């Protein structure tokens, strides 16, 4: 693909959602709901169409499609070229994969939203924000310039804030939006500092030339500062930052912090459950499929740096797996249907982060792809359920919905199986990346063992959710009166269910036989020049054993869950009543008390400092300003005494001045002469 084609196609993918956002936002209130529905959905449809074109081009190119970087326009050029920011886009397999998910799943969710927001007054605003989110996410994944990446990063956070707080009359929504945004700003700051460090320290080798021809000299010339913000150049020269040096470790740690903030990993994870205050399509799009995976994308994109900082990568892997375990534990006791799915997201992304932390980039991206399908499916189906029981989100009030909402129930079952990792999606992607964990990463088998424990937990909470919502007897009148969702909200769910079911079988098997399309597609990106070594695949025998162990653990979890919540012939409360275990449910329900901890550590001291400053500083500031005005008043009062109204006084002023002036002029003339 030539650069001009790339620029055109990328420009179109950026333009359509942006135009849709502007149209819905500006003309929507004027032209009405139908226009907004059409414009908001068609814009993403158009973007998806262009993405398909790009995909076909990338697939059809000669083997080993090289990344194409095109400049849309040059934005800043300062310091005689040292600070050059241009809106560059890069089209390679990684960005195409992300684009497919963003626009494809985004399109399905937009169609779903037409039905979900049918009775909402702010539909124009909603589609405007959603389209803007798609635009920012596209900008983020296409960016080939560090500044543009940061702009996309921040715009995504902004869209998230706008959409979480969409129902702004609800105080809980506003607070949740604020919490999400503030947490992500921490990540933004880390990202910006990392950008500074890269910009200042990146060097390109100097090639000595003599009359235009390169010569070889005994001692190599020192590298010169590159001062570039272009990602390809950064990656090409990543070696100049050292391998395993404190500098690159620091940069990678900062990048990881940014990724954690965006992907809701420990310790910056507290915003994701509260973000469920937003409408369900928002949760599906932003907090399942796309925005929270931006952190995974960041680490994958910056793999040349992470390959050279094993300490940082190791930390990433630990944090990812730890978060997966923690989130799975918490999801077991949550009673809000969306929160369970949110913690599930946190857990699955933890697995993705783990994968990119140990260098299994393709496996992590595979998990991202499949997770996008089944998580969006789960959220949309949950949206159907919430819609059906008239905005009730507590699963204790649900039950017995499978006979009342057949399509949704079957889709949800497919999604839960995909999540738990049996038969569909997760079985392939999760075991794929866990297999890498067998022999890669710090403490290699240890993290793998934690991973299969996560499998057990996943199976448990997934089928707990399914069982309580859809099986058994209805627990409330609302559940009894539930009915199936309208078709505009059913079709996206069904399509996603189909994708979740089929995609795993078709794309990549975690064992040495079967298709390996993802690896073939993505590995060129991760083995390009400038990157370090990627994770080693386990050999045939070990991989097969690992796969089966993981699968068995998933089945254990699913089985226990079915016995407790579907068939209702096992009761865990007696087991948990034993002294040591009594603490566990409480810890799980209160989300391991993180919110309270942060409140104590961060919020209260800040408020106390602010109160103290106000008490101490306000009088100072007030008196200072009042003092200024008092000075002016006193001065004017003093000068006013000169206005006596008596002509003689005014005349004396004049005479005095004339006297002084005359003498001064005479003296000056005398001196000048």
């Amino acid at each position, binding site marked *: 693909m030539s650069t001009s084609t790339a620029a055109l196609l990328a420009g179109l993918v950026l333009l359509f959602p942006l135009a849709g956002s502007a149209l819905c936002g500006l003309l929507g209130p004027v032209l009405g709901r139908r226009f907004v529905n059409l414009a908001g959905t068609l814009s993403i449809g158009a973007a998806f169409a262009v993405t398909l074109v790009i995909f076909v081009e990338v697939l059809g190119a000669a083997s080993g499609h090289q990344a194409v970087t095109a400049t849309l326009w040059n934005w800043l050029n300062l310091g005689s070229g040292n600070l050059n920011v241009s809106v560059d886009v890069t089209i390679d397999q990684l960005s195409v994969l992300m684009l497919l998910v963003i626009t494809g799943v985004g399109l399905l969710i937009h169609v779903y939203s037409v039905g979900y927001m049918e009775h909402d007054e702010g539909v124009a605003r909603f589609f405007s924000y959603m389209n803007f989110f798609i635009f920012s996410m596209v900008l983020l994944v296409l960016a080939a310039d560090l500044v543009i990446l940061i702009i996309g990063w921040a715009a995504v956070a902004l869209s998230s804030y706008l959409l979480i707080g969409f129902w702004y009359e609800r105080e809980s929504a506003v607070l949740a939006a604020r919490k999400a945004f503030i947490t992500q700003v921490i990540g933004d700051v880390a990202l910006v500092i990392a950008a500074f460090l890269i910009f200042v320290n990146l060097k390109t080798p100097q090639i000595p030339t003599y009359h235009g021809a390169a010569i070889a000299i005994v001692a190599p010339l020192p590298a010169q500062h590159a001062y570039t913000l272009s990602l390809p150049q950064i990656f090409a020269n990543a070696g100049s930052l050292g391998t395993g040096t404190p500098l690159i470790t620091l940069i990678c740690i900062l990048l990881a912090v940014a990724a954690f903030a965006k992907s809701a990993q420990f310790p910056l994870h507290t915003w994701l459950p509260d973000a469920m205050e937003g409408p369900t399509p928002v949760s599906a799009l932003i907090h399942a499929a796309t925005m929270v995976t931006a952190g995974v994308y960041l680490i994958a994109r910056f793999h040349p740096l992470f390959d050279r900082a094993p300490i940082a990568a190791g930390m990433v892997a630990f944090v990812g797996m730890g978060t997966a375990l923690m989130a799975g534990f918490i999801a077991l006791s949550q009673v809000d249907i969306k929160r369970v799915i949110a913690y599930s997201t946190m857990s699955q992304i933890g697995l993705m982060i783990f994968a990119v932390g140990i260098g299994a980039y393709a496996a992590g991206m595979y998990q991202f792809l499949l997770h996008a399908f089944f998580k969006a499916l789960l959220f949309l189906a949950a949206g159907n359920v919430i819609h059906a029981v008239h905005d009730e989100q507590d699963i204790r009030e649900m039950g017995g919905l499978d006979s009342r909402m057949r399509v949704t129930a079957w889709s949800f079952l497919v999604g839960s199986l995909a999540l738990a990792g049996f038969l569909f999606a997760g079985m392939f992607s999760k075991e794929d990346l866990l297999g890498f964990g067998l022999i890669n990463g710090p403490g290699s088998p240890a993290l793998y063992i934690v991973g299969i424990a996560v499998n057990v937990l996943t199976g448990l909470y997934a089928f707990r959710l399914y069982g309580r919502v859809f099986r058994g007897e209805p627990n409330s009148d609302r559940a009894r009166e539930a009915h199936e969702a309208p078709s505009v909200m059913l079709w996206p769910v069904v399509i996603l269910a189909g994708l979740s079911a089929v995609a795993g079988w078709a794309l990549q098997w975690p064992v040495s036989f079967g298709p390996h399309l993802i690896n073939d597609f993505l590995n060129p990106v991760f083995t390009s020049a400038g990157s370090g070594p990627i994770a080693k695949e386990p050999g045939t025998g070990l991989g097969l054993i690992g796969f089966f162990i993981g699968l068995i653990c998933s089945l254990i979890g699913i089985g226990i869950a079915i016995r407790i919540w579907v068939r209702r012939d096992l009761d865990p409360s007696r087991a948990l009543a034993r002294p040591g275990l009594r603490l566990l449910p409480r810890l799980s329900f209160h989300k391991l008390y993180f919110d309270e901890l942060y409140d104590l550590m961060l919020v209260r001291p800040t408020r106390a400092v602010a109160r103290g400053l106000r008490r101490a500083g306000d009088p100072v500031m007030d008196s200072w300003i009042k003092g200024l005005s008092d000075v002016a008043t006193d001065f004017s009062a003093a000068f*006013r*005494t000169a*206005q*006596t*109204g*008596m*002509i*003689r006084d005014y*005349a*004396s002023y004049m*005479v005095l001045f*004339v006297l002084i002036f005359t003498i001064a002029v005479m003296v000056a003339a005398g001196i000048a002469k």
Partner: protein
Amino acid sequence: MLSQAIFPWILLTAGFLFTLGALGVLIRRNPLVVFMCIELMLNAVNLALVGYSSFLSSEEGQVFAFMVIVVAAAEVVVGLGLLTRVFSIGRELDVDDLDEMKR
């Protein structure tokens, strides 16, 4: 005729008349006397002008002095008319009393 030596004395007298008029403006409280002191100042200026005109053999000084006389006449008319009005409404003829322009 006259020698150059007298010229500084002419200027001195003009200056003396001028400052004397200024002193009168400052000291006297009767507005009529103040007006007359102002006329004294104008005459001092005329003296200086005519002195220069004669000294430099340029009649421009005399033209200017002529203008000054005209302006002084007009000013006296208006000023005395104002004073008459002030008197006719019953105010005291005292510049210290006429202090409406104070703060």
